[in-house]
């Protein structure tokens, strides 16, 4: 009886851990080619030199955010990039219930080609494979 209880507890713990791991996973992976695009109303994207500053921009007041602007590039919508890293659920905002992933990218075209930085997962669109060739 006791063994059965232990086994059941271990199974529960494994399930919980798997679910936690699934929740913490990024949907985009390193090496993936993407297009930077914000929203249809405001399509340009900020590329930050640090994911922590990006988080501070999302979390802080407007005045605090403005003070951080020198650390961001404003890239045009449609700029292509390659993903180099991802931190799942890193950016939390007081206006949003769901945390956003921080995506590390390298810009591959446009005036900022070759520059690296961090963008929000919501500012990234995956490219279809045939377009990337």
């Amino acid at each position, binding site marked *: 009886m006791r063994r059965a209880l232990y086994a059941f507890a271990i199974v529960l713990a494994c399930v919980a851990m798997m679910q936690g791991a699934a929740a913490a996973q990024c949907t985009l992976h390193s090496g993936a080619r993407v297009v930077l695009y914000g*929203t249809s*109303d*405001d399509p*340009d994207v*900020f590329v930050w030199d640090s994911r922590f500053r990006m988080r501070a*921009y999302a979390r802080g007041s*407007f005045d605090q*955010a*403005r003070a951080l*602007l020198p650390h*961001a590039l*404003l890239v045009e919508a449609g700029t292509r990039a390659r993903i180099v890293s991802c931190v799942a659920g890193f950016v939390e*905002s007081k*206006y*949003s219930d769901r945390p956003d992933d921080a995506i590390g990218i390298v810009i591959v075209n446009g005036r900022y080609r070759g520059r690296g930085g961090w963008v929000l997962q919501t500012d990234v669109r995956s490219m279809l494979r045939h377009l990337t060739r």
Partner: protein
Amino acid sequence: MFTVFLVIVLAVAVQGAFQTRASIAQTFARQSRIEQAQVTLEELLRLQIDEENSVRGYILNRDLFYLQQYAAAVASFDRKERDVRLALEAEHLNGALTTLDQYATLQRQWRTQVAQPMLARPDRSMEEIDKQNKAFSDYENRTADAIRVALANTNAALALSTQTQINQTLYVRAFWLLVFGLMTILFNAYGSRVSKELEEERTTTEILQRAFRSQHVPLPNCEVGSAYLSASSHLAVGGDVFDVYRLSGNLALVLIADVSGKGVDAAVITAFIKFTIRGIALRRRDPGAMLAEFNTAFAQTVENPYLFVSMFVGVLDTQTLQLRYASAGHDSAFVRRSTGVQQLAVTGPVLGVMEEPFETKTLFLEDGDMLVLATDGLTEARDRSGEQLHEEGAIRLIEQGSMHPQPLADELIARVKELGGNTMRDDLAILAIRVRDPQVSDA
């Protein structure tokens, strides 16, 4: 009591239904206001984008049209912002109001810090201003999202509240339906029981009526008519009684009496009167003595000191047409002769009050004379204006009436009913006996 309870229950149910309806209507009105605010908020965001697009358009084309567009969007933005603010204030969404303040402040800052510099120097490189623009845009969108969420949550809460109220209404209706159903079943059961009791009572009353009913028997050389009308419309018995009873071949007992009171209680006394007088009359032939003996028996039998009886007792010899009579306070006794109607004298006090002797009087009737005995329902009959008929009126009715006893009795009843507008104040009994002289008949 039961009916009052039902009425109260019904009133409570109706009031509750109206209250629920008002409450649901109020919730719907609030929901409608919230939905309108949601629409206005989206229009506000569209105007914000219009402002930004107008600035961009001017920078790209230098067309003054875009400046007009910009001015129009600014004016409309302020109006819409006021509308959203009013809706949020009405719903007491203080958190959303604060966010709206932030949003409006950001948009005004954007106008001074981004839009105006861009419009003033459209040819200048504006990388920093573009960044500022993007930051404003990001923050305004976030605050607008927060207001959106607040409105959507409130709307959802109201929808839930409406659903809850509708559910409660259904439960309450089901409850009242159950209450009314039970009430109806109880009421029906109670009604059936009462109906059964009434039926039993009616059967009992019919049996009693048959026992107590006044009656007359045919007498030689006489034509007899009678009529009876009870003041209790559903009963054929009351406090009046008459009786015609043959004591021997020639002698007949003639009786009419009026007991104070009405209904079944009085009818029981009348039965006592009828059978007691018959019993006395079989032993005594003197009407005054009959009344005296009855007076003693009445006082010993009836315990109610407020009950009294007026009575006329006569012994009629149908051969000689001699009528010996005594009247205990009974003044509605008349003889109709060819010369007119004569009221017969009272010969003693009413019965049940005091012990006094009752005088017996003798009267010789002639061929065609009619003895008309009535109770006080005749002389005390009132017309619609309250005027009493009195003895004079009764005499006049008898004089004008039919020559035959039964038609006369029926006429007197009809006239009294007609006088009172079909409303009887007191019981009324009529007994009429028309005598024929056997010698005249033989001749």
